[in-house]
């Protein structure tokens, strides 16, 4: 670690607001991008990013300057995003909207109709947030299980278990709607 960064981290740990702003400017894009992967709405991602950095500031005294600030910030941001998912249970309309506005698959499968995609997105929105977040990061974003585990503060085995449970619940929900995956 360079001396300059180390100094900023030390000053941040002591509660220096200028050091905090420096770290915010350095990491806000990465944290926003990470949060967007989870909440999937730009306005919500901005809100959660502010909340995450607010929590980071409150926890400044607990930061270990020997650790990676980015990894620490990501863990805090993940929990802020999880809290957002819990408090903003996606309604049918908002989820449909985010689905419509979201990026289209690079190579869409012609066998999967728009209605099936929409129903799958809605069923996914009904999953418990802690299962949804694991599936979003591990399956949709295709991140390594180790990275997801670190962000969620759980073991790799727990991530695999949550993903499996999410997929099983999703399959059951779709089957009840007459969609056989």
């Amino acid at each position: 670690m360079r001396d300059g960064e180390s100094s900023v981290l030390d000053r941040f740990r002591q509660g220096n607001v200028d050091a905090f702003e420096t770290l915010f400017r350095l990491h806000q894009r990465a944290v926003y991008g990470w949060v967007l992967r989870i909440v999937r709405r730009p306005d919500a991602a901005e809100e959660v990013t502010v909340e995450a950095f607010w929590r980071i500031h409150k926890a400044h005294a607990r930061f270990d300057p020997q650790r990676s600030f980015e990894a620490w910030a990501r863990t805090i941001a993940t929990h802020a995003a999880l809290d957002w998912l819990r408090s903003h249970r996606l309604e049918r309309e908002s989820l449909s909207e985010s689905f419509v506005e979201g990026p289209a698959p690079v190579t869409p499968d012609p066998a999967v109709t728009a209605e099936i995609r929409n129903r799958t997105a809605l069923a996914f929105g009904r999953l418990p947030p802690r299962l949804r977040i694991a599936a979003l990061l591990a399956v949709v974003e295709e991140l390594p299980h180790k990275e997801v585990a670190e962000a969620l503060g759980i073991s790799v085995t727990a991530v695999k278990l949550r993903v499996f449970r999410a997929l099983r619940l999703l399959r059951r929900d779709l089957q009840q709607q007459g969609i056989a995956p």
Partner: protein
Amino acid sequence: MNTHDQDRIQHLLREALPPTQPAEPARDLWPALLERLNAQPIAALRTVPLLDWALALGLVALVAIAPATIPVLLYYL
């Protein structure tokens, strides 16, 4: 659920929710964060329990009504 089912449902999920593209905030988020930081002392005052405020007001009232109690209060502080 076997591996084949798992692969199918994962495929369906990726079709329904494609991965997000790299993006950055549409605006500078620092002012919003700074506003929260500046509001912190007021928020801290709001977290003081009502009973504590009532006790403080009671003491002020007592001192105003009976100034002779000040030495007694100071003795017990």
